[in-house]
């Protein structure tokens, strides 16, 4: 379908849903206590983003997300590559990894608060536990799925262990790792927000929790939308990074000569 008509249909869907909602509230069909009118939510968002103190909250959530993301990814890639290369270690550690991964991460939040306090690091820790496993499993899979012929070729050409890692294993795992990076951004945000939600004095999760405490549905909805935009922006940045990093992958426009 033509790109313009796709855009048009998307716009129509948006207008119908939001407009229907707005009209439903005005007509009294929809309870405004539970579903506040979109215009009020929009007004709340604008009030927030024109207020400088709002950016303090965004900054804190962003810091937690980025820290959790970077630490979790680094640990996940390291552990994944290691266990991908060493089958023995993978076999030994397998039940423990499965066990740890089976713990619903949210229940760890109180422990992290106990250990690390109500500040930044308890949220980072929660985000790390969420991000780690996604990256870990992908990195391990990526290393294991290295084409054996390519590997043999590099060995015959004289690559030593470190060079194999750098020139074969990492690039081969890179597309797996990158795809996990996309998924885990969402997890990093979830970790940070839940942490804030359960106990904090700042951040977007705190804003939502506060609005909820005041039965302020407008604030809750506005917070949710802000969060969605927040994740979308990070996603766009990663998209650009992925395109720059993996130039060797065939895409649909480029056909072999």
């Amino acid at each position, binding site marked *: 379908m033509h790109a313009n008509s796709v855009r048009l249909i998307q716009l129509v869907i948006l207008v119908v849903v939001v407009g229907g909602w707005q009209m439903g509230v005005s007509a009294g069909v929809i309870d405004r206590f539970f579903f506040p009118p979109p215009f009020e939510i929009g007004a709340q968002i604008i009030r927030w983003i024109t207020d400088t103190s709002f950016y303090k909250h965004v900054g804190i959530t962003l810091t937690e997300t980025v820290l959790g993301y970077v630490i979790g990814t680094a640990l996940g890639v390291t552990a994944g590559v290691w266990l991908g290369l060493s089958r023995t270690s993978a076999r030994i550690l397998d039940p423990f990894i499965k066990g740890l991964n089976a713990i619903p991460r949210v229940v760890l939040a109180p422990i992290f608060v106990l250990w690390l306090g109500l500040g930044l690091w308890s949220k980072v820790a929660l985000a790390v536990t969420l991000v780690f496993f996604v990256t870990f499993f992908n990195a391990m899979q990526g290393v294991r799925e290295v084409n054996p012929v390519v590997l043999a070729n590099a060995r015959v050409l004289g690559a030593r262990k470190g060079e194999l890692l750098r*020139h074969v294993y990492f690039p081969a795992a890179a597309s797996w790792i990158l795809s996990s990076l996309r998924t885990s951004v969402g997890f990093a945000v979830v970790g940070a927000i839940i942490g804030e939600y359960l106990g904090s004095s700042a951040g977007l999760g705190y804003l939502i929790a506060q609005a909820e405490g005041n039965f302020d549905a407008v604030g809750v909805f506005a917070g949710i939308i802000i969060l969605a935009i927040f994740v979308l922006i990070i996603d766009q940045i990663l998209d650009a990074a992925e395109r720059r990093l993996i130039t*060797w992958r065939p895409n649909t426009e*480029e056909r072999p000569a």
Partner: protein
Amino acid sequence: MALSAVKKIDYPQVPSAAAAKPMVALQGVQMAFGDFVAVDDVNLTVADGEFLAIVGPTGCGKSTILNAIAGLLKPAKGSVTIDGAPVKGAGGDIGYLFQQDALLPWKTSIENVELGLMFRGVGKAERHEKAKGWLAKVGLKGFEDRYPHQLSGGQRKRVQMAQALITGPKVILMDEPFSALDIHTRHLMQNELLRLWQEERRAVVMITHDLEEAIALGDRVVVLASGPRSRVIDSFPVDLSRPRDVAEIKLDPQFLELYKNIWASLRGEVEKSYARK
């Protein structure tokens, strides 16, 4: 291009295998995977500058012999030596042309060709210069910055050739290198290969199931028995004059005579390997 190059150059006659020093020597080699013995008691000597072609029915463990010479697999019994020195692991003085695509897909042609030199610690400028020269040699000038997925199957094979030969290995191993290519591209690549090899003769061990290819390229054709416990059952010297053109040589009466003789030996093994399935 390839054909004219082959015809122009005049080469000395093939040195007899006995006269030149042995470059590759396999003695009593057994390759096994657990209880399964793929090849047993293989004794082979390849002279320096000799082009040895190994033919055998599918699944007779031909590739494991190459992998033993390359140091990718360890023989269960016996010894493998290259130029008198026992093979210890991969990365020796060997060029290996694989059947499948073996280029690193995340590196451009020139980066792929450079690899062998890079792993040997050659400086950036020097290896870049050499790799560029080799790409030109295999007819891929101007394709330096293409990724493998942007090249055709034949072009990828050319890059692989340059990659395997750039280090000037003592031994070149080939595992059905052209079997994935269409027949015209295959002839072109075979001629190209002969041209490159004749510029600087090395010991070559090529595995193929294509008897025509074996005779057209080789100085000697060795027949392997059907697996398991495959071994060398026959060896035929190919005294066709060089340089050869692989497409034309097939019409040579001497070629046909050789083909008949070797096929008589190979046919029984092929039938046996089918009977086992």
